[in-house]
């Protein structure tokens, strides 16, 4: 029997996770709509439908992410707290989680109880986020997955030094345009490096602690992970569904705090 639901409203996708007393029994990911409440509700409905249940008011739900406070049928918890709990349940040995989402990236330090001890976030700069990657892929004229393939064939990646997403874009254009043009493989690797430069700087500000795990949609991207491991000099743990970490954490918190008022 289901005990708790967690929903994570991202700028691009909304994720819902349904728990029974020990494990995940269902989950769903769908594109966020313009209306927060609606996104959250449909995500939960979908995840419930998968196990033949219907949405009803009064379910034990914790919401996190963009505008989660405005959701009427759930309690709200901060993204960092949810990430920490989710990460902790996926990899108890992880002391640091790097969350790379569509529009923001966050680095958190986690103690053995799955509590945040410090965090750094970059919600004001698209550089270093999924949206940025998508833009770049469009620019080079490849799909996200093709881009990832390319990254593995890089020989000498150029440095993309611009922090403004728009100028980074023009920097990339200039690499495409120069004679002889920089190869797509190298450009992609360059883009990855520049994104990760910002993320690694966040890690260093928080103080790197092993083990380190990656969460968020961007972590599905094998190339990013391999470059990240290279830059950090050790392996990064990646869960099967990295984009669910926060929703899972929310669900866990919901289960623990069952009965608390919204």
């Amino acid at each position: 029997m289901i005990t708790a639901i967690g929903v994570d409203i991202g700028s691009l996708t909304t994720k819902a996770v349904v728990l029974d007393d020990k494990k995940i029994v269902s989950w769903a990911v769908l594109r966020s709509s313009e209306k927060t409440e609606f996104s959250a509700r449909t995500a939960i409905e979908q995840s419930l439908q998968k196990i033949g249940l219907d949405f009803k008011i009064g379910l034990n739900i914790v919401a996190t992410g963009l505008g989660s406070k405005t959701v009427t049928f759930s309690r709200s918890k901060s993204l960092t707290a949810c990430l920490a709990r989710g990460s902790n349940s996926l990899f108890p040995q992880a002391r640091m989680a790097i969350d790379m989402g569509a529009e923001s990236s966050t680095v958190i330090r986690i103690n053995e109880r799955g509590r945040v001890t410090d965090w750094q976030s970059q919600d004001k700069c698209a550089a270093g986020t999924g949206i940025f990657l998508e833009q770049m892929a469009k620019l080079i004229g490849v799909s996200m997955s093709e881009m990832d393939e390319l990254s593995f064939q890089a020989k000498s990646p150029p440095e993309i030094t611009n922090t403004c997403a728009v100028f980074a874009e023009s920097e990339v254009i200039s690499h495409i345009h120069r004679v002889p043009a920089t190869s797509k493989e190298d450009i992609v690797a360059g883009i990855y490096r520049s994104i990760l430069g910002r993320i690694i700087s966040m890690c260093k500000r928080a103080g790197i602690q092993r083990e380190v795990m990656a969460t968020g949609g961007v972590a599905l991207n094998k190339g990013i992970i391999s470059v990240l491991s290279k830059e950090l000099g050790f392996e990064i743990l990646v869960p099967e569904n990295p984009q669910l970490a926060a929703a899972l954490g929310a669900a866990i918190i919901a289960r623990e705090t069952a009965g608390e008022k919204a």
Partner: protein
Amino acid sequence: MTDTTIISPNNLPEIEYFHSINRAFPGNSEIMDFKAQGKKVFGWLCTYVPEELIVAAGALPVRITGYGRETDLDDGNAYLYINNCSFSRSCFQRGLRGDYSFLDGVVGGSTCDGARRLFDVWRRYINTPFYQVLTVPRKTTDDAQALYLSQVISFKQNLEEFLGFEITEQNLLNAVELCNETRGLLKKLYELRKRLETPITGAQTLEILTASFRMPKASFNAKLKHLLVALENSPVTYKGRARLMLVGSVMDNPEFLQSIEETGGLVVTDELCTSTRYWSDPVIINNGEPVINAIAHRYLSNFPCARMYPSEERFDRIMALCRDFKVDGVISQIIRYCVPYAHDVPLLNDKMKAAKIPLLNLDVEYGSSGSGQIRTRVQAFLEMMEAHKK
């Protein structure tokens, strides 16, 4: 004609050599050979640190610089935060990543916020055996001279203690002669640039200058002497679309000048702390005066940085250079968050307007090699000057 692009041939062997010294820096052969003789190497930062004392102590002074290019400064950002100038962040990152691990000491001055903090985090996170930051007054009054002298003397004492070596008056005298020789030779080099057709480009000049503080002076002087002879009657000469002067923040990347010169503007002089402000004004010893006083006096009252008061002195010397080098236009390049220079922009604008000298303001990051946007500005600046010459 828009096609007059200046491409530095770098064919002269000495320039090639200096280039290789710069490319291999900090681990270049000159420094490593010196170190291999069991001698000490000290890193200094900023033109308000007297090199003579380090030389007099039988050690090698090496100027601390960052990566000569724009690069990801993730350590710099983490330790000095994103809002200190990219120069200090770049220097620190090199230090933290061990590029300067061969240094026996670092010496700085309380010259600007960026430098102060660079040394604060350096002391905390990079352990270099010898460490000192001199108080550098922002005035050149007699009181200021006295204070700075006391700092230079304490520096001397600390060096002696650290090296277990007494720096004699004669040591200082020899050091002054050596450094003055370098200054004299660099002055000669600049004299050549006053010609209407110069035997050397701005990019090449900066290549030489950056080498001058990355190798022993004696060996540098020897090479530069040969080069001067070669340049004196060199068949290759340059005459750009316009004669430019470069002013502003610290700059040690010849590629930046090259990208300016490729648009056709020839850089003939500058006000950079890596160039003119580094070599101008020799140490002059008035008879009877202790050498160290002469040294201290030269370093505090040398061609001033924007940190000094009053700014007028700096502006006057810029004007003088414009006249002496027949400068058509001035390019001011200021590193983001280089507040001392940024604050002078409104004042400098007025000075230049009054003197009817066109001025182009560029804000850059340290190590920039000249982006498309920068080239566009420079090209437009040149076209603007040409339109008005007509």
